[in-house]
């Protein structure tokens, strides 16, 4: 545990030191925050719409078994084959088996956090299936052997020079730093892949219980390509992605793109209902949905059920002042940022990721940005409470003493007065070397000196007799 902890601290220190990444993330997120604010201001019922989205999702989660049943039987009617995977290993096994049985050799993937969660690419490659990411950002991440750092903009941490070098190495193209030309290089390379692929793997943004429809949103069109070109389409579906009815979709679609990038709708919103009909000229002959549990049913029954409302829009990452200063890699988890600090410990173990929920200032910017009204700071505090007894003894003792002081007005007054003795400002008027345990705290922050008179005393002297 302590080894983990120092890892985490080191990653953060490294993240804070990388000026270039900080600048890149700052630039990209600030711009986005403005566009998003503009887009949301055009929604005349923004707050009511968030409320509606939150309620529809919450209702679905509370009644999930019934909706799953509905979804599964609708899929069977449409000719979609539904599989169940209890964990990441089972999901990998199922997908590799589908690839094997269908004789697939070349798989295309459209961006999906859920497939990241199960580490699918390595498993497919090991099974002899060449697997190509087709979202531009994810493709760069893949050929650069890197990891995505944002759930919507995976290469937010890279500059154009790094991207250019990666593309030159992979495709042998001429070096250029022009984003339009770089995109054209990737397009050409990936066209060839799309033309010859035989397996398509996607995540799912929303799944409709009443019709067995899955909805996939992309801006580049790779989601639509991946569900059009290959013979076989596999959709990995976290069980929390369900909504009851087709007519619920506009509620979420209207919020998703506006909160994520400020667009009215993602460029391609694709609704898939079963494999291609026999007479359709193109489209996959087989559609498989792999229902993924991987810890979700555990969350469903507990006090963190709301977390499953998340629609992965990324708004909380863009709103977060911490994320904007260290990017996604410092989190060391598949899901970065505020939502990642909740989801990662809940899905892959609270003890192993005890530091994540603590790495937040609880300012609440994420809660205000979230289209499904997740109380992220409140839930982070709840999660922290779960690992309280794993904190170091000194910290726990400190907290006990703190509690004791805060409960007694006399003690509080005493300590307050003595603080003026202990906390001496430096020449610049700030305290940057706190005594004893406070030294840890002031290592990275400065403290203003305590005021000459306490608030209590000023109240008594200046205002108390006014009423």
């Amino acid at each position, binding site marked *: 545990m302590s080894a983990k902890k120092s890892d985490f601290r080191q990653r953060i220190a490294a993240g804070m030191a990388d000026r270039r990444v900080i600048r890149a993330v700052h630039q990209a997120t600030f711009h986005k925050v403005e566009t998003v604010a503009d887009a949301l201001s055009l929604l005349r019922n923004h707050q009511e719409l968030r409320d509606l989205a939150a309620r529809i999702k919450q209702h679905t989660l509370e009644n999930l078994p019934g909706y799953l049943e509905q979804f599964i039987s609708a899929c069977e009617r449409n000719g979609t084959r539904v599989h169940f995977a209890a964990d990441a290993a089972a999901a990998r096994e199922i997908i590799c088996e589908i690839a094997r049985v269908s004789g697939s050799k070349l798989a295309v993937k459209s961006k999906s956090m859920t497939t990241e969660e199960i580490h699918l690419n390595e498993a497919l490659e090991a099974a002899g299936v060449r697997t190509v990411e087709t979202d531009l950002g994810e493709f760069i991440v893949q050929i650069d052997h890197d990891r995505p750092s944002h759930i919507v903009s995976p290469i937010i941490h890279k500059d154009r020079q790094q991207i250019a070098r990666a593309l030159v190495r992979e495709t042998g193209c001429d070096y250029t730093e022009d984003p339009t030309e770089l995109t054209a290089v990737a397009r050409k390379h990936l*066209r060839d892949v799309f033309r010859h692929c035989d397996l398509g793997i996607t995540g799912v943004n929303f799944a409709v219980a009443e019709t067995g429809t899955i909805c996939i949103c992309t801006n580049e069109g790779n989601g639509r390509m991946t569900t059009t070109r290959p013979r076989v389409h596999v959709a990995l579906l976290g069980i929390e992605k369900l909504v009851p009815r087709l007519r619920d979709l506009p509620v979420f679609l209207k919020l998703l793109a506006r909160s994520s990038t400020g667009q009215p709708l993602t460029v391609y919103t694709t609704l898939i209902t079963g494999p291609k009909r026999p007479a359709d000229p193109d489209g996959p002959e087989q559609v498989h949905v792999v229902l993924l549990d991987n810890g979700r049913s555990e969350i469903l029954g507990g006090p963190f059920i709301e977390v499953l409302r998340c629609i992965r829009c990324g708004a909380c990452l863009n709103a977060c002042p911490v994320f904007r200063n260290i990017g996604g890699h410092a989190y060391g988890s598949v899901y970065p940022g505020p939502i990642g600090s909740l989801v990662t410990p809940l899905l892959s173990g609270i003890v192993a990721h005890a530091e994540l929920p603590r790495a937040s200032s609880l300012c609440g910017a994420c809660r205000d940005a979230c289209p499904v009204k997740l109380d992220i700071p409140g839930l982070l505090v709840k999660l922290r409470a779960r690992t309280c007894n794993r904190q170091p003894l000194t910290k726990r003792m400190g907290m006990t003493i703190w509690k004791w002081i805060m409960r007694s007005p006399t003690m509080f007054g005493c300590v307050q007065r003595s603080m003026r003795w202990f906390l001496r400002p430096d020449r610049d008027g700030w305290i940057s070397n706190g005594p004893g345990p406070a030294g840890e705290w002031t290592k990275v922050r400065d403290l203003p000196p305590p005021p000459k008179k306490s608030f209590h005393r000023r109240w008594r002297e200046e205002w108390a007799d006014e009423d």
Partner: protein
Amino acid sequence: MKTNDGPKTGVTNDDARRDAVDAFVNSLKRRRHDAPAKTMLPEDIEIVTRLVERDEDPAALFTQTATTVGVNVHSATTADWLDVVAKLLQEHQAKDAAIPPVGDGFFEAERVEQLKQRLVADGVAAKSETDDETLFSVDMAITGVAAAIAETGTIACEARPIIARGSSLIPPVHIAVVAAEQLLPDLCDYFNVLSKRSELPADASLITGPSKTADIEGVLVTGVHGPATVHVVLVRES
């Protein structure tokens, strides 16, 4: 669950596959049994969700919203639509173009015939095939649409036995011809239409602008995988 016949993933054994799914749903049911559901499913969602009322002029709004998302909107009438389309082909210096099948939205038999003749007269090869060879090589595709949405500047393309998904996706330029009657005010309206169908298409794609990315340093680039240029020819009754 059957364990001995076939691999345990059930990929090749439908019974084993269904058993595994059912067993999971049942285990969820048992687990959630004593946790009562508190949140009601909201019924009147359209009151809050609808942004565009039915009495607004959808054509004017569509022109504005589609332009904002990067679509080139051209207005035409049933008398001059062919000229508008022909001019676009000329501007793109198209040598060949995929043409829509009869029954694709605006394109009734007579209109497809007119389009074909016009293309031939202008020296553009008209391709009605939808095989890979064609779709990966043509300079552009001309299609009809299933509907268009004024609120967001969206066109809806649905797969049908005559309509290939690839036409509105693979060629670098997409010209969609939309009849004014096909315009719906709000996204909600499209989903209401879909909900009333007895059978849904295998693929219904809402397309809002040209294919886009801002992955490289936040710079907006069009034409990543789908068309880089989308034209909508909006045709009113003359």
